[in-house]
């Protein structure tokens, strides 16, 4: 998809002289990107926020932001990276403001999932609750790595940090996650 967008971008009129077709071209490019990646990005935001509706809003807004700033992208081929960063920014901001990241918030698995596998649902709840108690940068690194399977270099680009920092953050985050899980399983109040 990135290549498609890059190819589309090369055919776009120059930003300073918008032509009648500009809106159509960028709308098509953004819409295509949305169709291909919206689901995974909504899921990413849902993991970060714990709110489906909030996740949809943030992803939708990220694509609207991409649409508005399309002419200003330095590298339209990295539009997906731009949107992903916007989604993470949106999640981060929403968490700071809405306090959805409450340390102790109970994660409630979907009813269907809980009925299907009660035990694994409980384990999943523990992992997710522990994840949400991590500092935001650690949480983002873990989700980008273990949900989206992004390489360290891409995570570094998305978060604006060095790859070495991604690695050290991931190691610290995993250790912290394990510590929290062990504590929860030992019966301590998380």
């Amino acid at each position, binding site marked *: 998809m990135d290549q498609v967008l890059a190819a589309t971008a090369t055919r776009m009129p120059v930003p300073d002289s918008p032509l009648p077709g500009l809106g159509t071209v960028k*709308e098509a490019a*953004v819409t295509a990107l*949305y169709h291909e990646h919206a*689901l995974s990005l909504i*899921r990413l935001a*849902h*993991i970060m926020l*714990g709110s*489906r*509706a*909030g996740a*949809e*809003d943030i992803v*939708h*807004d990220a694509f*609207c*932001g991409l*649409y*508005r700033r399309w002419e200003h992208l330095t590298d339209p081929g990295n539009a997906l990276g731009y949107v992903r960063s916007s989604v993470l*920014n949106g999640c*981060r*901001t929403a*968490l*700071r*403001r*809405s*306090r*959805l*990241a*409450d*340390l*102790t*918030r*109970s*994660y*409630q*698995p*979907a009813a269907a*999932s809980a009925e299907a596998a009660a035990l*694994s649902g409980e384990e999943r709840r523990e*992992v*997710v609750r522990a994840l949400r*108690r991590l*500092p*935001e940068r650690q949480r983002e690194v873990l989700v980008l790595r*273990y*949900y989206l399977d992004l390489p360290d270099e891409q995570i570094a680009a998305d978060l*604006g*940090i060095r790859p*070495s920092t991604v690695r*050290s953050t991931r190691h610290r985050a*995993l250790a*912290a*996650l*394990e*510590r929290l899980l*062990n*504590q929860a399983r030992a019966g301590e*109040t*998380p």
Partner: protein
Amino acid sequence: MIEEQLREALRELADEVPASRVPPLSLPSRRTAGSRARTGAGRPHLPSSRWLAPLAAAASVLVIATGVAAVAGLIRHAGIAPTAPTLAPGAVPPYYIALTTGGPPSPDHRYDAGIYATTTGTLLARVNAPGRTRTFVGVSAAANNLTFAVAAENYPSRGLPAVTFYLVRFDPASRSAQLSALSRLRVPAGASFAGFALSPNGYRLAVAFEPHRGARGPTAVLRTLDISTGALRTWAGSRGTVAAAAGSPSLGWSGDNATLAFNWYGSRRGHPGTFAGTTGVRLLDTRRPGGNLVAGSRLAVRLYHVKNPLGLVPGDSMLTPDGKTIVAAVRSAGGLTGGFAEFSTATGRMVRKLGWGPTTTSAQAGMMVVLWSSRSGRTLVVSSPPGHPGQFAIISARRTRLLPSPAQARLPAAAW
């Protein structure tokens, strides 16, 4: 092992969003870019969470209309006073500051701040985030109820942006607010902002963050600014973090303007499976010398202790102005009931529960926050008390009374 558990948990969590859940994309027209254009058909789910709060607030006005008169007894007259109000004991301050938007939900998540009347929820003064690319991300209040502080950052931003702070002085007579930068104190870019608090007298600002660091260096930094002199003071901790969740009001001053309460999560060297005994709400006397965040503070309440007699899971906490009590949002271990609990800073034990009730949604539990406390904690202002998600309320004498919420202050980021 832990990586596989994490992968599985994330995959299962992600699968809660089915493919059919993806709503159609509604791009803004070129002329109206920047405004929200997504209200058409084809959005197959419940109203967005970003609309729920104003809807709830609007609905609540009907309920609250009759409640305001009762609440008024607790609240000092919110008339236009030219000087700082003198509050009766237990009286809720007449004004508060909250993050707000200028109109419809903003597509780019930028927030300004507004100063509101407690009794009516009326917007009295708007405080615009400085610059086109800035947004406010947090608010705090001094005890005089006319001085506030706001935190701001660039949006959008790649990585964690620097966070800067401003003082807001509200003039009730003119219904205007003056913004002045506190340029001496900032959270550097790349650091993880944990929280901030303005002292009751409005002369000191405390900020906590996790620094951007390599393998070595402190894991937590707490810094105070003396606003009148510009003097900075820093404490650092190396094995633990302050309030390991974004958005949590992790800091709080007592009424002496010198004692700071902070949530500390300590880690044990060589024992990765447990928290250190240092974990809990700690009190730091900023008048004492030294720069060690843990050694220089004392553990007041061990909220996360295994022998918590009621099995409560605590959330946000606040130190009461008299310094004797920690008030925390809590819920039962099963998450079905919750409310607020007070803990003695002298004994660490729970003193009483307030506003207890069923908490039916995780979102509600997450937004349950103590926003203000009277000197002894007898009267609280909270957000999202059990049964009333997304609303502000006064809890006093075991009674919960809802406050009118302004339609634009959709999220409970507010300070009294």
